[in-house]
């Protein structure tokens, strides 16, 4: 890596990176403003913009690959946004290997999920609105990863939050959906406070908020300032990525249509926190404390998600907690600094494939089962939905880290660099990540068994059937990614080489545990997890109703380890109480005192209220009185 924050001017095709944002944004505007006359073509417009975007993205990445050494990051200022004195905020694009990877993921997976949604949303009368919001999301997400400064990033950051809100609440007649959307927005805002204050700190200390200036000046900052910046950015990242302690909104977000869960709440938006930290590498490189905080958040979250994921019966919620857990792995890796940045992005990509595929598979199951999500009412679906079953199984193998599937490469690397970070913390991080791999194998095997294997436990009106090709083809494509992406990105087109201009060369490390040992141990732990699920779930009949007499551990896990209960009792109820108390004080206290004072002044206001004419007279009188005061004062000045 050269000096942090030195970017070349964009020219030629690369100067059109802004179109990546513009095309879906126009799509969203057309779909929203076009009204009902676009109802018939809305989904086609929505898909066309994203497919076009993907083609453009491929061309741009090819152009970037052809750039000379040292010019692999190009920037392009679009317009002056907030110019006030020394503050000069521009809107601009930064296209470098890191944003390129995200652009491909967002437009590629985005296009597949858009196409899938044609089938999934076919019977929804508001399908045009759905595609408008999805286009809006893609535009905002691309702005997030393409912005060349923290303010541009923040605009995209909030934009994806809005799109997420709109899409979680898409079926807003359901109170649960409306509440989940609001919860997501509010909890994200808590994180946003961290990000926006970080921006204030940057301006206060460096006089700029652009990546170029911030990274170039970072080394001159006081150590405490850098750590504060790192922790503030981490708070923002936790909100967007559903990491402890701001994780509670993500599982609730499953109230949205399943393609939304796949694209926004699995593959792309929720990984924005990882992007934020990776992008801010020049800051995190300077603060050990901030990096450690990131790894600890990652470890806690990956364990939390894995434990809770074992206890839920709702197929989407299990996948959601799995997402929470897998992003925990990414946080763990990205917090390890130069050794982990590329590893985190690798896991982010493979997760993007297999988790999007798994969600689309879950959607396909729901599509064939009258929108049922309770796995206790599934069973034996493998024979009814062959394509869904096979693609889902490939995603499953990838997620649990079955040897040589995509997830195997990336998760193994995360565990490896965790051990390699050294010291006691290294053992804790590596051991925790390995343990969670076993838990992952358990809950995913449980999900597979309950859904596709065993005897059917369907409701009487269920007629499971395979989904149409418009849905299964995207699932097949994603499952290919789940199988091969890891191998390709490690051995054929190494991601770490591609990202070297951003993160610098990977440091040489002395392995604490030999990689082969890590691989073997992890595989054994995973096998144990699969075996446990087989033993406890597959060998016996799955009850249609969840058992009531269970151990306290399972009870706690079913209540997501009391995460929601904590939020309710610590924030929500006291907040409601405080609000009520203050309304009372404002009405009785402050206003009461004023009214009392007015009444004390001869009860004028009471009498005035009775007749308006009387009031006008008094008003004229008071004006007259005022004029008198003025006149007397003037005379006093003049003759006094």
């Amino acid at each position, binding site marked *: 890596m050269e000096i942090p924050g030195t970017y070349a001017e964009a020219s030629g095709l690369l100067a059109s990176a802004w179109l990546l944002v513009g095309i879906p944004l126009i799509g969203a505007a057309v779909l*929203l403003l076009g009204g009902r006359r676009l109802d018939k073509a809305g989904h086609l417009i929505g898909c066309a913009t994203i497919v076009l975007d993907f083609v453009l993205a491929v061309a741009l990445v090819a152009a970037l690959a052809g750039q000379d050494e040292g010019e692999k990051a190009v920037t392009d200022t679009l*317009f*002056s*946004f*907030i*110019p*006030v*004195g*020394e*503050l000069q905020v521009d809107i601009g694009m930064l296209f470098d290997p890191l944003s390129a990877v995200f652009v491909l993921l967002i437009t590629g997976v985005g296009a597949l999920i858009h196409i899938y949604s044609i089938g999934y949303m076919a019977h929804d009368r508001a399908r045009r609105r759905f595609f408008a919001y999805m286009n809006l999301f893609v535009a905002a997400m691309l702005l997030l990863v393409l912005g060349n400064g923290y*303010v541009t990033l*923040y*605009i995209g*950051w*909030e*934009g994806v939050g*809005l799109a997420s*809100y709109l899409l979680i609440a898409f079926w*807003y*007649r359901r*109170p649960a*959906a*409306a509440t989940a959307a*609001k919860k997501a*927005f*509010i909890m994200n*805002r808590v994180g*946003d*406070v961290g990000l*926006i*204050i970080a*921006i*204030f*700190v940057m*301006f*206060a*200390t460096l006089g700029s908020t652009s990546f170029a200036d911030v990274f170039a000046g970072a080394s001159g900052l006081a150590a405490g300032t850098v750590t504060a910046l790192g922790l503030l950015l981490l708070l923002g990242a936790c909100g967007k990525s559903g990491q402890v302690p701001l994780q509670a909104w993500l599982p609730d977000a499953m109230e949205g249509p399943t393609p939304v869960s796949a694209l926004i709440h699995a593959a792309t938006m929720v990984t924005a926190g990882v992007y934020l930290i990776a992008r801010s590498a020049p800051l995190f490189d300077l603060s050990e404390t901030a990096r450690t905080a990131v790894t600890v958040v990652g470890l806690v979250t990956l364990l939390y998600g894995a434990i809770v994921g074992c206890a839920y019966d709702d197929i989407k919620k299990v996948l959601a907690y799995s997402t929470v857990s897998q992003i925990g792995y990414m946080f763990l890796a990205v917090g390890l600094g130069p050794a982990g940045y590329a590893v985190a992005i690798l896991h982010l990509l493979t997760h993007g494939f297999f988790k999007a595929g798994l969600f689309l598979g879950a959607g396909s199951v729901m599509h064939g089962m009258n929108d049922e999500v309770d796995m206790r009412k599934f069973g034996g679906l493998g024979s009814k939905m062959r394509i869904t079953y096979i693609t889902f199984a490939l995603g499953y193998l990838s997620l649990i880290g079955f040897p040589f599937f995509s997830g195997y490469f990336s998760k193994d690397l995360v565990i490896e660099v965790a051990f390699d970070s050294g010291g006691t913390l290294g053992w804790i991080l590596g051991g925790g990540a390995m343990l969670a791999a076993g838990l992952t194998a358990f809950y995913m095997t449980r999900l597979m068994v309950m859904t596709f294997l065993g005897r059917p436990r369907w409701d009487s009106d269920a007629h499971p059937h395979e989904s149409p090709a418009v849905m299964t083809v995207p699932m097949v494509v994603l499952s290919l990614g789940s199988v091969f992406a890891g191998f390709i990105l490690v051995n054929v087109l190494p991601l770490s080489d591609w990202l070297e201009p951003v993160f610098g060369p990977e440091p040489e490390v002395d392995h604490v545990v030999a990689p082969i040992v890590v691989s073997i141990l992890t595989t054994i732990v995973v096998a144990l997890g699969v075996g446990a699920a087989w033993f406890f779930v597959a060998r016996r009949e799955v009850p249609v109703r969840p058992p009531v007499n269970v151990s306290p551990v399972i009870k706690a896990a079913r209540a997501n380890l009391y995460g929601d209960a904590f939020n309710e009792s610590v924030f929500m109820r006291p907040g409601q109480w*405080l*609000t*009520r108390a*203050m*309304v009372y004080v*404002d009405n009785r206290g*402050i*206003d009461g005192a*004023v009214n009392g004072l*007015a009444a004390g002044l001869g009860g004028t*206001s009471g009498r*005035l*209220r009775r007749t*308006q004419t009387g*009031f006008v007279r008094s*008003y004229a009188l008071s004006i007259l009185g*005022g004029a008198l*005061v*003025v006149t007397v*004062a*003037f005379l006093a*000045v*003049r003759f006094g």
Partner: protein
Amino acid sequence: MSDFPYLLVLMLLPLVTGLGLLAVPEHRHDVIRRAALVVSLVVLVLTVLMTVAFEPSGPRFQFVQSYPWIPDFGVRFSLGVDGIALVMILLIGVLVPVVVGASWNEGADAGRGTGKSGSMRTFFSWLLVLEALLIGVFAATDIFLFYVFFEAMLVPMYFLIGSFGGPRRQYAAVKFFLYSLVGGLIMLASVIGLYVVSANEIGQGTFAFDALRQISIDPDLQKLLFLGFFIAFAIKAPLVPFHTWLPDAGAEAPIGGAVLLVGVLDKVGTFGFLRYCLPLFPDASRAFAPAILVLAVLGILYGALLAMGQTDMKRLVAYTSIAHFGFIALGVFAFTTQAGTGAVLYMVNHGISTGALFLIVGVLISRGKSRTIGDYGGVGSVAPLLAGAFLLAGLSSLALPGTNSFVSEFLVLLGSFGPYPVFSILATVGIILAALYILLMYQRTMHGPIKPAVRGFKDLSKREMAYLSPLLAVIIVLGVYPKPLLDIITPAVNATMSDVGADQSSAQAGNEGGD
């Protein structure tokens, strides 16, 4: 064109038309409202032309006109605008035609069992007179003239609330009037005091802003005079704890009146801070700033918490304004270019977005005949356009990037972070609360199952779209490209900051320390 007497014409046009409307027979509704609409649109065009003609890098006050008025006391009828006053007049120009459109049937039902006494003729007459006086209060560069407008604008607003408002309109109108009158009288004392000081300092008493700005006043006397102005403006703005008249007035006023009351008239308070308190009393401003900042931050959090607790939609919007006025005061008294510019832009943006919010709430109330949030539910399913407009206005109110309010809130918080990081951080927490009160109201009214009372709701009519869509468009345009307004505001704010002696470099590096 810059010799054109914009300000005089801008005031006389609505004033004369407003009075002229009284000569139109009361039942000629179409003549009355169309005349009001045409005149307000002409005013809008003129304000836009004036904004284009304004030279940001030119003299501080432009379009200056000055006529002797009360020569014995040195009172002159002096008009002129700096960048701050200019954007406020532009805001008036935008909002009044919108309000005319929204009040199209106001007073048409006078006397028919509604208990409202006002007729359409008086409504539009008062409305146009109010517009003239509001333009005057921002355009005055003679402090006595300012005081006259400051008091006079109460009269049309009093009648708009008292004759056309909700069930408790009399109470609200009197409360509004008394609060303002008390503030005005206190300010009058300071105005006279200033005159006396100027008489002593330069031998000849004057009310001219530019002359008064240049005399140096004894710091202790400054504090007294400052407080006179400050209290009047703090009541008007309003800052906590001078705020309790606003929820009543905002809730009881007719929608059009509420828009102008909260959108423009209250801004005279924050405008007054910038125009009068800071330049005339720099030492006192600096001395009182920390205490005022405490009130500002208190207002942000207090207003937001109270907004959350409201069950009445109009009161809720009024309380959100108290929080927003806290942000403006924070920006004014942080004494940095960014925060000050943000505060002025906030004044404009708040007028637009709260105006839109009031108008949409007004549409809801016109359908459901209730101000209670709990009476609505599921409106989004029956009136999607209405819901969409509500959401956009709400997102602006919670300062989502991409909407106008983000830019101003960002500037205020960023600009105050340097000198006052603790206040800035506390105020930033307010953005979480803003999301809560807006989204709670949105969810309760627009989401969920369709309530029986909501069934059969009509979506936005053409007329409603016509007056709402300009505001919604401005929300987006100013959110994406605020530069033209910033370029006008920043030089005026810089001039104000150098009046108050704020160290410009303090915007950076936080070198004034924390608290």
